[in-house]
């Protein structure tokens, strides 16, 4: 059905919600008012529109009045929109031709003692919905087929575990490693805690399991050359060493398990200058190969090149456990070996605390040093080494003789990891490790769908933690592959080639890699990657990029409708500001709803317009609001750091900061524009934000651009 071309016929259904709406808002007046709005051919009120009688009525009227747009004015779309959309679909109407006006959570419940104002606000909200509805377009939802195979990059214990988990579930797995043999870091380790088992034994069993699994395809001595495509359909080019022909494979999901490497602290504490100064990893290799010449006195230094003031500021997490484990091993070899650990802070969480205690009981010495007074290593007589350290507990400098110094250096990202980050277009964090999209909500996921991370590629962790994460990544990857298809919604970016000036602003603005740059500048939208935030549309200088369902003309229609007062001289003299609030559909809209559910009362001057993300609010939208007569505009988004599109709210804030500087040139006081952030649990904060902003606007007085009536500024 091409609703764009036929006559627009809007049906409006206003819900009393029993006493919830009907007890405050004069529903018959609003219903009569609805009938006067453009394109509205039908309006009725109902006691409960979401009841089966209410839904039946919607279906009946769609047919009877040939409605091609439906509006329900009732509660929040967060809970009831899917139900009404389904009803529309059952009556043969595309569900994207449905619009909702929230006159309960954001009206009757928050203005319980102001029935007149609440009724006026309900009329405004309805008028906005009707205006937007006239511009709605039918949309088709996208379905993506998922190739049931995975690429696991990295054949260390994390990669092996993830690959085995997926292969056991029946998926084809391509396990790729740059080295000739599986095992990663485990190949170099001696024993593993907490079990104390030999790493080689653990690894041997894992490798046998991998090799005997027919669903796992091994690609050794192989690197990732190129990756294109999107979830379900990644095209990967593999390059195997000494092979001319690159190999192409197609996979549905990708797991990054590329591990990390040990920092080599060249130039610190005599490392690489004296052969008796080695790292913990090198020490483990000696143990593993049984090549350790039994030392008499060993000094281990912790935090070598880690937890620095700048640069590697992070804690590598595993070094304390490793040092204690190795110290205990020395003591088991020969209790007479003197072992001293110079530490800044011991971090032995969980089980490791028992080992710490055991080490102390086995007379391993622990000496605390200070970052500002690090130990010094000098050569003593007879080729031994002298470590001078300022003991912060003693408050004095002490000298330790030693014939072996073991440095605990942090894990760091390696060159291949950095290269992979740019090939996959997934981010690295400040510490250089792969950076997940959300630490709590999506801890093994990247923003790009279908790509997951586990193991030390994501940051230093011990084997227990690596395994847990590997299982998590495998289980996340298996979800779309088991489903075989995923729905990808219809709210996607689209570009008008005619208007596009090929500046690539959209390409740069998209954090989901959903817009690819073509050589000559034509943006190519990868719909499967598009999450529908609309940031690209707001960054597009020309308005060529648009977000379906939230296009500029749709949003502006709602904005302009708000300020079209029919009865605007009711109360000349007493200033009642009209304020537009853009609320992102996630946290800030939910906070507004919560304010309603909690019956927190706030001034009735604000009209909320729902947008996908605060980052979708365009300069043009704000400007049009002011030009149409808004006394104030407030944009609300999720808390900084909690944006559902990573940093849309940061972009919104940047935009507001710049706009504030420019509004003056149009004669608009910059204080009339504000941005605020609230989590979905902060109803109180949302109400306080609105109340505060209304106060500011009241002090500023009516906007100079308000519609004028008979020479007098209309104050409604």
């Amino acid at each position: 059905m091409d609703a764009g071309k036929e006559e627009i016929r809007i049906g409006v259904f206003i819900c009393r919600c029993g006493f919830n709406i009907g007890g405050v808002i004069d529903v018959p007046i609003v219903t009569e008012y609805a009938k006067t709005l453009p394109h509205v051919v039908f309006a009725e009120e109902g006691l409960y529109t979401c009841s089966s009688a209410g839904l039946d009525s919607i279906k009946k009227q769609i047919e009877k009045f040939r409605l091609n747009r439906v509006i329900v004015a009732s509660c929040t779309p967060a809970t009831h929109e899917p139900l009404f959309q389904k009803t529309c679909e059952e009556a043969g109407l595309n569900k994207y031709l449905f619009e909702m006006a929230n006159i309960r959570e954001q009206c009757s419940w928050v203005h319980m003692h102001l029935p007149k104002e609440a009724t006026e606000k309900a009329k405004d909200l309805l008028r906005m919905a009707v205006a937007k509805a006239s511009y709605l377009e039918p949309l088709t939802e996208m379905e993506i087929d998922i190739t049931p195979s995975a690429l696991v990059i990295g054949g260390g214990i994390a990669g092996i575990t993830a690959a085995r988990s997926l292969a056991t579930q029946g998926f084809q797995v391509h396990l790729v490693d740059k080295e000739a043999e599986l095992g990663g870091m485990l190949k170099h380790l001696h024993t593993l805690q907490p079990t104390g088992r030999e790493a080689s034994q653990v690894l041997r069993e894992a490798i046998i399991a991998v090799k005997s699994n027919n669903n796992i395809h091994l690609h050794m001595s192989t690197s990732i050359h190129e990756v294109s495509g999107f979830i379900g359909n990644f095209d990967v080019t593999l390059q195997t060493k000494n092979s001319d022909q690159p190999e192409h494979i197609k996979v549905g999901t990708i797991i990054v398990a590329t591990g990390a490497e040990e920092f080599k602290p060249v130039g610190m504490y005599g490392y690489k200058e004296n052969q008796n100064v080695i790292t913990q990893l090198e020490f483990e290799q000696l143990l593993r190969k049984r090549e350790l010449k039994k030392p008499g006195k060993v000094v281990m230094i912790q935090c070598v090149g880690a937890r620095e003031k700048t640069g590697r500021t992070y804690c590598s997490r595993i070094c304390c456990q490793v040092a204690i484990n190795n110290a205990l091993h020395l003591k088991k070899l020969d209790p007479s070996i003197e072992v001293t650990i110079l530490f800044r802070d011991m971090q032995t969480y969980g089980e490791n605390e028992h080992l710490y205690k055991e080490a102390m009981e086995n007379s391993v010495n622990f000496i605390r040093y200070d970052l500002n007074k690090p130990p010094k290593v000098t050569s003593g007589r007879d080729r031994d080494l002298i470590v001078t350290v300022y003991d912060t507990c003693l408050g004095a400098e002490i000298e330790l003789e030693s014939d072996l110094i073991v440095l605990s250096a942090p894990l760091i990202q390696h060159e291949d990891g950095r290269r992979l980050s740019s090939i996959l277009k997934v981010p690295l964090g400040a510490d250089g490790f792969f950076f997940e999209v959300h630490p709590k909500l999506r801890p093994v996921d990247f923003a790009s769908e279908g790509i997951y991370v586990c193991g030390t590629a994501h940051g230093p962790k011990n084997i227990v933690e690596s395994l847990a994460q590997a299982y998590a990544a495998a289980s996340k990857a298996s979800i779309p592959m088991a489903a075989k298809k995923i729905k990808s919604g219809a709210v996607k970016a689209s570009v008008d080639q005619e208007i596009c000036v090929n500046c690539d602003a959209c390409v740069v603005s998209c954090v989901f890699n959903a817009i690819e740059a073509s050589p000559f500048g034509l943006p190519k939208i990868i719909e499967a990657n598009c999450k529908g935030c609309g940031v690209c549309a707001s960054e597009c200088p020309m308005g060529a990029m648009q977000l379906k369902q939230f296009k500029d003309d749709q949003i502006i229609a709602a904005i302009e409708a708000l300020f079209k007062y029919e009865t605007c001289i009711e109360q000349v003299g007493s200033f009642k500001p009209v304020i537009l609030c853009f609320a992102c559909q996630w946290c800030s809209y939910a906070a507004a709803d919560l304010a309603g559910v909690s019956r927190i009362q706030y001034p009735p001057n604000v009209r909320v317009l729902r947008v996908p993300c605060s980052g979708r609010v365009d300069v043009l939208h704000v400007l049009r609001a002011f030009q149409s007569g808004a006394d104030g505009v407030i944009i609300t988004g999720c808390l900084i750091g909690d944006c559902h599109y990573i940093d849309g709210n940061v972009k919104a804030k940047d935009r507001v900061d710049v706009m504030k500087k420019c509004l003056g040139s149009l004669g608009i006081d910059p204080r009339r524009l504000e941005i605020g952030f609230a989590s979905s649990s902060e109803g109180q904060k949302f109400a306080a934000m609105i109340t505060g902003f209304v106060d500011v606007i009241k002090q500023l007085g009516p906007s100079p651009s308000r519609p004028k009536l008979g020479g007098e500024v209309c104050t409604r």
Partner: protein
Amino acid sequence: MKRELARHINLFEFSAKEVAAKTKPGQFVILRIDEDGERIPLTIANADEQKGTIAVACHEVGRTTTQLGRLKEGDSVSDLLGPLGKPARIEKYGTVLCVGGGVMVAPLHFQAQAFREAGNNVIGVVGATTKDHLIFLDEMETTCNELFVATDDGTKGYKGMDFLSDLLKEKKIDRVVAEGPIVMMKTVSDLTRQHGIPTIVNLIPIMVDGMGMCGACRVTVGEKTLFACVDGLEFDGHQVDFDELLARMKMYTTQEKIAYVFSEEEGRN
């Protein structure tokens, strides 16, 4: 003189005798439309010493370029400074491949002419997003010994840049000069790197003074940080950090949009 080359792309000829007398291909000017105006750098697309004119092509992509596009024949701009930057290195190399994209085909043509005059066999590539945005086709056809056309959407000529890798295999090319969108120059450089062909890209990043003072136009080339205005516009395409350049170009997207939208709205009222 003003000539529409494509929708929102115009060629302007300015009378600027002193500038014209000194201009060499590869150089640029900075102009300001009025006293409050923004200074914008534009690469020179032609210079006629006898007529005392220089030509620039401009794509309307924001506030100032749109304002410039609205100028009519006979109008003038407040000031025009140049020629700035180093002239392109024009020598006899043998076969020179000139790859141009979008509005930058116009200044590239200026270079292509010089390469031809220096006795080179010149192969040209004219590219744009779509058929209607192709400019200077006739001029390039006349100047080059051989011409290829490409568009992103394939509405004319080759679709995208893939054809270039075959071209590089088939022909013996001694030097490549690319001028156009950053992504295009990056694509070209990546392709020629595999064949070891010296590749020059013409970079014109965000600039302020254009004389090496402010550092706004810095580009990372190999280990070095260089200024496009005084060290360029020519750089070794195999050494340029294009990703950084692209990010730097988008540093003021918000401000640019506000400036554009506000000026359009001011004009509306």
